[in-house]
């Protein structure tokens, strides 16, 4: 790794405690993996269904360690120029124009001028490497990016350095804590996975989910939260197109509080089901299986 630095956390238990201070209730496995990613200096690849708190985990780590969060949002067709760095060619063209008007020409002069830091646009990956303050680098929805982009990530993630042909190699002063998230819409390459520690984040256990709901929507009260979590778990056990995740549980809790409902009976579930289930066929199935009508 080349860079020696003091670890962010002292123990796995400490990770869990500190994350819960900023409202992220991690299970012991998550806390352990975060702790190890920091200790071993390896990027953390978090995979799991949408809405279980993958991105939130990175934000929470940044918050408790006082780090700046640098985020690279991946999408179809993202390339080097968007992820790593880009030369600002508009500015370079202007500079050429100005130099020509001033009578300063010649290749040696220009090369020194237009390939300098001033004309370099740092994109998230380079930015995260160059920062001297503590940094959490979040590469979000890695599975949306093309396979070539993963190749790009490899140098950054294993050596924490970026090579710019015109300027040389920029190595990290301070190693960022890297979190990659993926919804598993495609399998990431072996090469990338090998460089990461892996965490599969799934729907939480009943107790933890109730605690999360209470943390986010304290007005809901113990008993209703319990009912809500039990019902959501019953929904997840069905064959649905899209099972509700924690995000949906929290939305549901907010809805119930807003509507002033204090118990989750068949009537209440039927009227608010649209908050949790987003497909008409899923809602129809839940209505029959939970005997709502």
């Amino acid at each position, binding site marked *: 790794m080349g860079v020696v630095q003091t670890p962010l956390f002292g*123990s*796995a238990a400490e990770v869990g405690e500190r994350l819960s201070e900023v409202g992220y209730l991690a299970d*012991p*496995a998550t806390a*352990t*993996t975060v*702790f*190890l*990613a920091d*200790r*071993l200096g*390896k990027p953390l*690849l978090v*995979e799991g269904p949408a809405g279980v708190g993958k991105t939130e985990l990175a934000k929470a780590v940044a918050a408790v360690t006082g780090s700046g969060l640098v985020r690279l949002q991946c999408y*179809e*067709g993202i390339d080097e120029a968007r992820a790593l760095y880009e030369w600002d*060619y*508009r500015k370079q*063209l202007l500079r050429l124009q100005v130099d020509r008007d001033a009578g300063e020409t010649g290749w040696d002069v220009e090369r020194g001028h237009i390939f300098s830091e001033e004309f370099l646009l740092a994109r998230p990956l380079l930015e995260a490497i160059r920062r001297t303050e503590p940094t959490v680098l979040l590469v979000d929805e890695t*599975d949306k990016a*093309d*396979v070539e982009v993963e190749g790009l990530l490899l140098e950054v993630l294993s050596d924490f350095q970026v090579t710019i042909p015109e300027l040389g190699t920029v190595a990290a002063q301070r190693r960022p804590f890297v979190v990659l998230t993926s919804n*598993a*819409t*495609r*399998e990431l390459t*072996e090469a990338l*996975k*090998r460089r*990461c*520690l*892996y*965490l*599969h984040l799934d729907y939480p*256990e*009943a*107790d933890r989910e109730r605690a999360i709901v209470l943390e986010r929507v304290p007005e809901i009260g113990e008993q209703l939260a319990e*009912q809500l979590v*039990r*019902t959501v*778990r*019953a929904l997840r*056990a069905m*064959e649905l*197109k*899209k099972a509700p995740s924690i995000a949906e549980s929290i939305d549901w809790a907010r809805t119930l509080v807003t509507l002033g409902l204090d118990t989750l*009976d*068949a009537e209440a*579930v039927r009227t608010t089901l649209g908050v949790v289930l987003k*497909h*008409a*066929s*899923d809602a*129809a*199935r839940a209505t029959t*299986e*939970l*005997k*709502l009508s």
Partner: protein
Amino acid sequence: MSLLDTLEGFTGALREAGVPAGTSEVLDATRVLGAIDLLDRPQLRAGLAAALVKRPVHRPTFDLLFDLWWPTAVGDPLELTQRRDDESGDEAGEPGEPDLDALRDELRQLLLTGDDEALRRFARLAVAELGHAGAQPGRQSWFTYRVLRALSPETLIASMLDALLAGEPRGGLAEQVARQRLQERIAALRAHVEAEVRRRVAEERDRDQVARSALPPLADQVDFLRAQREELAAMRRTVHPLARRLASRLAARRRLGREGRLDVRRTVRASLGTGGVPVETHHRPRRVHKPELVVFCDVSGSVAGFAHFTLMLTAALREQFSRVRAFAFIDTCDEVTRLFGPGADLADSVRRLAREADLVAYDGHSDYGNALRVLVERFPDAVGPKTSLLVLGDARTNYRDPGLALLKGLVDRSRHAYWLNPEPRREWGSGDSMAYRYGEVIEMVECRNVAQLTDFVGRLLPV
């Protein structure tokens, strides 16, 4: 055995079970051992998993092997020894029969309160008390079924439901939710008991042997023809994520050859930023050719699980084709496309299929010849030059007319035609299987599990 020896044996077993734990994974695992609290077993499990397991399908294998290589304890659980000591205080003599009623009471409480750690402890105790069948040399002496039969947790459900519902009326939402909760807990109990039995067996016998015999096949390697009901349900739940994965893989392949014709308007607009020099050109997306898919599938008895899964998958991939038509048959054939329309609940469609479609004319045994004849006669326009034809079935004709000429006619009319056979290749041609005869007129593909099917559908989809 030292810590590193154990790790080496463990990773070796993982590899043997098909989990690709390479050198760098093992090095990471070694560093993990140095960084965590080794006495904290859940932490050890999570840490090793983070380093060694990079795909969720491998996690059950990892957990099973982890329990064998890092067992919770050795011999009888401590609680049991204590209990026996207490008893022998006032009764003196050898340990008597386990008090089954007391155990069932305890279980009832645990299932109601839902404390997982306590349930695990209980499972260990119950295995020690109930799971042992008098030692016979060379035979296994610990059994899951003995424990579960004695405890029979299912018979507790009724009284537990009463307790959970606390006077609320039966038959509604509350009961469904409570039932789900109890089933979840009983499944957890079963898993704990199985793990404990494996541990005890491994203690008496060879650990590697236990590992080998207990390992379940990876989820996408389960044979369609051998799958249990729960396994089929679990498969069906993966249909939508699988379809999404296939679709995005396809989109990536399409993008590789993305350069369509030059989009002049967008190129000129973009060139304004660079003083009229077209530094970047823009292209129109290429038009994608979408074929028509016709699925013709045997939904009789044994192959139904396979046919249902494949029907659901093709329906979920509907957007990738210009049209999907589905025909199901047993001894006669009917169109079932309407059941798999947009927005349909696919699991439900599969259930309605047998009820609503006209599939049986005689005895309910597959009749390929008649089914093909009905398809050709009743739906003459089904297969045309734009069609990709997919036949699903085990090619077991019950010694009836295979209808080879009819099939050949369909294949000749179609653009592509494939037959997916869920039977292992080595059984083709045995008994009433006409696999090789059909193979002469249509390309027959072995398709025993989800992995093979995914592979095939990935190749079938149009680029």
